[in-house]
């Protein structure tokens, strides 16, 4: 029997995501790693987090892994089962969502997210999942956290379709469009990024253990801001890894 690695890259991403959440916050999540991150936060430092799924689910306690938000497995033991208008209207659009977790096909130097299509929208393109609630969350959450794989084709200077606005082309452009908030973090399997307060361009915040600045930049299709000193991402604790493996994602569907 092979010995378990200390932690997988996905587990590290989940832990880095969990660390961004404060106790008592209201968090809008899609399925996948964001759910793992949020449940992890809720079971450790942030027990009073409220979790929302856009279709009308609040604070479920699933005991089986679901294939998506449409799977009743992920609604199990919810405190509220309601509707889009209740969740995305009366909580999110009302201004009460603190954090939205988003993922996608690609993001760019200003945290704009594309989940719609790849190619030329006016010519040949391949169409994918579209927005769902992602655009709404990106528009109305107080801040958003993007979780995405660290691949050159997924991290571009500009996305081919802005499904969910980040800082658009940077500086005050998001505010000019009438939007507050915006992405606060981009978490990949190699690093954590933030955004320059002025230009709103992605800035390297920390590098995951075992990676170098060169690794990070080699798998990026744009040049982020790289400060002189970049810290190392704090690795998961043994207890965090145990919680993910034994309680939150025992079937290893999300956290690899």
């Amino acid at each position: 029997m092979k010995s378990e690695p200390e932690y997988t890259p996905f587990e590290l991403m989940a832990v880095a995501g969990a660390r961004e959440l404060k106790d008592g916050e209201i968090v809008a999540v899609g399925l996948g790693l964001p759910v793992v991150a949020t449940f992890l936060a809720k079971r450790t430092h942030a027990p009073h987090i409220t979790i929302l799924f856009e279709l009308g689910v609040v604070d479920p306690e699933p005991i089986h892994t679901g294939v998506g938000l449409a799977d009743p497995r992920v609604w199990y033991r919810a405190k509220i089962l309601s509707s889009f208008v209740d969740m995305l209207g009366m909580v999110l659009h009302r201004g009460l969502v603190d954090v939205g977790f988003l993922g996608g096909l690609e993001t760019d130097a200003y945290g704009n997210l594309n989940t719609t299509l790849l190619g030329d929208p006016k010519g040949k393109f391949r169409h994918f999942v579209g927005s769902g609630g992602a655009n709404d969350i990106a528009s109305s959450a107080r801040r958003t956290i993007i979780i995405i794989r660290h691949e050159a084709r997924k991290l571009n200077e500009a996305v081919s379709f802005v499904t969910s606005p980040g800082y658009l082309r940077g500086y005050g452009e998001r505010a000019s469009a009438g939007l507050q908030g915006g992405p606060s973090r981009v978490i990949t399997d190699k690093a954590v990024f933030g955004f320059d307060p002025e230009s709103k361009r992605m800035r390297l915040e920390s590098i995951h253990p075992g990676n170098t600045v060169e690794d990070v930049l080699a798998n990026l299709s744009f040049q982020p801001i790289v400060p002189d000193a970049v810290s190392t991402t704090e690795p998961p604790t043994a207890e965090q890894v145990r919680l993910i493996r034994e309680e939150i994602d025992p079937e290893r569907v999300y956290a690899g």
Partner: protein
Amino acid sequence: MTKLSTLAEAVASIPSGAHVALSGFAITRCNMAFAREVIRQGIRRLTVSQCVGAMDADMLAGAGAVERIIYGGGSLDRFGRLNCVNRGIEEGTLVAEEYSSLSLAFRYLAGALGLPFIPIRSLRGSDILKRLQELAPAEIGYVDDPFTGDNWLVLKPLIPDVAVVQVQVADEGGNAWIMGPRWDNEEQVKASKRTIVITEHLVPTEVIRREPERTLIPGFRVSHVVHLPFAAHPTSVYRAYDYDAEHIRHYAEATKTPEGFQKYLDKYVYGVQDHWGYLELVGGLKHLNNLIADPILGY
């Protein structure tokens, strides 16, 4: 007044070219038996709408019954993309008016409330909005907030000709309950000109009167009640039955090519006489029994 009718009668009430709001979300509470019957009856040129695109819309689009889809994106969850919808968009055979979940939910809500327009913060700065400005400029506008002077995007109400909704419980008058989250279904029904209810369980009105707080769909909005068990198969109905993972995997694979989907249609839609024939074909009593929901878990 009984509104009970067969699926065939309910479907026959929908003319080609109608706008149909569908109750599905990805792979749950999809109008699958309905979609199969629409295809069998040869109804065409439909506009279909739903906040999150689902298997019901995908099958109708794949069969060429849909001219326009008004939706907020969608998938078959982890089973894959909406291959038929995506192919139609990529090849230009399907007009896709794409929104976000909330912006479409707000259009239904405005329709339901009789509002002339509804302001929204979503879509700003996005390419979704740019595309809508090109594709559907009549559906969006701008208004200055008389209280602050801010300029707001406003959306036109969406009023489908008919909402088709898969529910767990209804009486013969069309009063119906939905268990589990309801996503956009209440607003779809209340915006639409009329509603077709497809129900797993038919109950006496006496049962409805016992817990009237649960009645989400009022009978007076309903034209047809179709009592048809497993009508959402292979998708799930909370507290009734689970999705049929094996069948959806087969569908996701089959829909990767037009030829594959045609074979699927030939077998599961054209190859059976009606819903009961379909249920036998997909495995009959023994197979379906495996899908029946655990009464505690609800799936």
